[in-house]
């Protein structure tokens, strides 16, 4: 991701259960993927 503004790109919102996703395309660097909104910034400790 290049960090450029998305004003020329595309953000398309969708839901998966309670999770709010944004399919995002950057016109500057052509990156395309899902950006997922945090309800809470958390770190899972399950791997320990």
């Amino acid at each position, binding site marked *: 991701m290049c960090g450029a503004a998305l004003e020329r790109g595309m953000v398309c*919102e969708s839901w998966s259960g309670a999770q709010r996703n944004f*399919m995002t395309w950057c016109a500057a660097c052509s990156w*395309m993927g899902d950006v997922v909104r945090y309800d809470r910034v958390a770190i899972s400790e399950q791997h320990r």
Partner: protein
Amino acid sequence: MLTVEQNEELTRVGPGRPMGDLLRRYWYPIAFEQDFDATPSKTVRLLGEDWTLYKTPSGRYGIIAEHCPHRRASLTYGVVHPDGIRCGYHGWKFGFDGQCLEQPAETESSNFRDRVRAKAGRAEPLGGMVWVYVGPEPAPLLPRFDVYVLDGVRDIGYTTLPCNWLQIMENAVDPHHVEWLHGYYFEFLGQIGGFEAPKSFQKKHVKVAFDEFEFGIIKRRVLEGHSDEDDDWKIGHPLVFPYCMRVGGMWVDQMQIRVPIDDTHTWKLFYTLHHPEAGTWERQDRPVVYEFPWRRDDGTLITDYVEGQDIMAWVSQGPIVDRSTEHLGRSDAGVALLRKLFKENMQLVRDGGDPLGTVRTPHEIIELPCERDKFGAGTAFTDQWIKGGSMRYAPIRDELLALHRDAAQARARAAAGG
């Protein structure tokens, strides 16, 4: 969901609009060759503009903005010449490129005509239809997709729908609707209507994927009871950017064409080629063309056939879907991908490049990937498609059914060594 501004950007197809500029980089079928048997000119509407499409005595086609630059009378009611068209009102004559060639009421020495040029495009026949390009020069080549050039029997069902073309295209990257609209809903209609709905659409989706390719998006699916080795996944079928979907099975190959007439109307065609292996047929001079119904006289929608169900969905979404009030889910990823493709290509055009699917290399045929064994249904699919879809209205429906059945029997005999 999109903002109102984003929705406007994606759906407005008129001149000077970003989507209008992108869509003008492609060729569109706009009439049938038989339309010119009785008259040399007709008015057509494309991308929000009205045009006069005409055919000269030598068989060359031309397209020019309908309203004469003089005093705006319709050129459709003009005189067609070997080198252009002359307005019926005052005789102003225009060449194929729109350049004014004669102004009979002006003095011969005047150079007024040199300063008048009508908007014009290019027009060519292919596959029984007249195709036009109304974008900037240099024009790309008219793509010779397989269904338009291969040998076989052709039928073309058409109608005009009161909705924007984009919501029809979004249906093309929405595989899950098949098991619900054409499976579950069709079965429901069969139960209350007392008829047998086709079973082949009722299989559930296990896996769906989309791949971008040089002409658009390949859609792939794995249905319950099937695997990655089946045609629906291994081959898939394409959305042909920006206004078609190619489908097929068992040597019925179809281009579903959605021509943007204007912001709220689409010319919808099912262009079907029938060419079964081991089949025999007489050479057609032209495709059989017919208008198919989707609405009864009382205004209710006809939904007891597959395409009628799709049309119900598209038309009931409204003239232009309000995407600022939609709620997409994960299963709508294909829809989001298509919108991204449109945004990307609008930007390409703004930056001076050729958009996706532009063809500039001379060629005889462009073969598109498409399933042969559809939904694992074998030859039964052909019968169901012809009898349960818009082809049920084809004047040659019974001949088409016989063509495929006879061919299947011939293949069976050959396989049995007979």
